């Protein structure tokens, strides 16, 4: 574990901003995540939620704003691999597409082992043991960890991706639509794994999603993003039961659930799509 930091937040973002050409993807985002917490960033495509996540892990360079993880500043992408490795021990990420989240030529066990070599000083035996521990944590057995990725289901691959991220013992795990591409029965299994992992390791989640029901199941707090800005924030239960912002209300009303009927909104000219069309 990197230097324990019980009191202060494990992740702090202030005034984060990003533009692509003349399109403002992220316009002034602030958020805070405490140790062991679970914060959702909800929004539709083009809301900027994924860009925020990519900036936090250094895959995208912010135009402005400050990012601090575990008390260390990471507003600018790391200059060296050593710096990236140190930051890898603070924040990790699991992506959406299960079919390209693993190197097709590398077994799950060796993928996790490769991270252990980067982040720990364990010897070969120690690493093997730790790989088995991590596999158990995400509900995978010896055989599955040795199988070629192409033989694993989408759900199993995402579990490997989670185990690989946990191998770096991060304080924050960003889940960027990590269960969006999974079938319902498999999604449930992975959500349960996430619940177990959080209980056992105390890792904090930054959960990027467009799915409000999944957000309710996984997170304690939520920020709702639209057009690159946060339009509402608060405890997940409160925001979903009594949304204050009209957009959050619209989002909630659009989610199919028992007894729900789709209602056409006032605007007939599809402006909403025209707005999105520009992105």
């Amino acid at each position: 574990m990197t230097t324990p930091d019980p009191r202060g937040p494990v992740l702090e973002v202030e005034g984060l901003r990003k533009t692509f050409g003349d399109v403002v993807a992220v316009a002034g985002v602030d958020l805070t995540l405490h140790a062991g917490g679970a914060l959702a960033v909800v929004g539709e495509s083009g809301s900027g939620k994924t860009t925020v996540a990519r900036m936090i892990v250094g895959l995208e360079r912010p135009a402005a704003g400050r990012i601090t993880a575990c008390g260390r500043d990471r507003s600018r992408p790391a200059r060296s691999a050593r710096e990236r490795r140190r930051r890898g021990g603070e924040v990790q990420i699991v992506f959406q597409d299960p079919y390209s989240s693993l190197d097709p030529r590398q077994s799950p066990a060796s993928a996790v082992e490769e991270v252990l070599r980067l982040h720990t000083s364990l010897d070969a035996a120690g690493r093997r043991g730790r790989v088995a521990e991590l596999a158990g944590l995400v509900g995978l057995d010896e055989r599955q960890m040795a199988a070629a990725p192409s033989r694993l289901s989408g759900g199993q691959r995402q579990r490997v991706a989670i185990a690989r991220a946990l191998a770096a013992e991060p304080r924050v795990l960003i889940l960027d639509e990590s269960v969006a591409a999974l079938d319902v029965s498999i999604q449930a299994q992975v959500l349960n794994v996430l619940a177990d992992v959080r209980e056992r390791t105390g890792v904090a989640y930054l959960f990027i999603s467009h799915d409000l029901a999944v957000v309710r199941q996984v997170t304690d707090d939520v920020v709702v993003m639209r057009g690159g800005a946060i339009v509402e924030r608060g405890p997940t239960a409160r925001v979903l039961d009594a949304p204050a912002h009209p957009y959050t209300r619209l989002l909630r009303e659009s989610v199919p659930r028992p007894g729900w009927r789709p209602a056409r909104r006032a605007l007939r000219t599809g402006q909403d799509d025209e707005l999105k069309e520009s992105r």
Partner: protein
Amino acid sequence: MNASLLDVEGLTVFLPVEGEERPVLRDVSLSIAAGEAVGLVGESGSGKSMTARAIVRLLPPGARTEGVIRYRGEDVGSLRGAALRALRTDVAMVFQDPRAHVNPVRTVGDFLTEGLRTHRRLSRRAAEERAVRVLDEVGIAAGARRLRQYPHELSGGLLQRVMIAAALLAEPRLLLADEPTTALDVTTQAEVMALLDELRRERELALLFITHDLELAAAVCDRTAVMYAGRVMEVRASALLHDDPLHPYTAALAAARPSLARRADRLPATPGRPLSAFEAPPGCAFGPRCAHARDACHERRPELLPLAGGQAACARAEELRGLLRDRNGKPVVSHDHA
């Protein structure tokens, strides 16, 4: 029940995959009355999309089918040339990914008016007038400008509305919608589904709505069929599907979906993964994953039999009545994850 518009009886489809013939649909039976909306729900590999494509004979090359599909009393399999083309104007289809399903190098106008100009010999101007009117109905303003645009200049939501407009322009009797909103944002989805539902009812169109989202199907369909591993597991009035399912798989599917209203400590997840028809074991395909399975379930494949106003393909459906969901909708069946 007025005469059904579409009758699918014992449909079994085999596809050549890497040299061997593999079943993708196994004895699927389903009927749709004129003006009725039927949902077809299932996870990956369930065969829901293949069923829709079989109806208009759009199966991949080399596919072999058994069983019969009757549309307005005629056997679809025997239709050739002009008769088959007539069927395909009477049955319109909307696909999941509009960007792939609309010719990218021709204008939106070409796409919308091609059907009219080909089948009804309408002049380009007359066809375009009609197209603009229907575009307005699907919520797209300035139709004339849109006709001159190309598909890549429109957002996913707008392009899907164009596809729906094109389907309506053919004035079909049956609309097959294969996951039309899966690629769209949830707010756009709600808008597109509301529009599809409203226009369908106005035109008394029958609808076969394919989706992986149980609640979405229930919201727009009178009845919903649940498919698993190429088989129909249950057909049920949509209103009862969530609260009083007949088949353990439907209950498991509904329970596995997190609720918008409350947070469960752990979701009742079903172990294993959804199987495709050719991976299914003998007996009930859901047997290996079913919490209520008994030995009988693994021997014989259960038939789809009428039960409580719907149909279910489960040997223990009768005795499980009422046990699949407890009072507050929490499923009785509970598993710790594998």
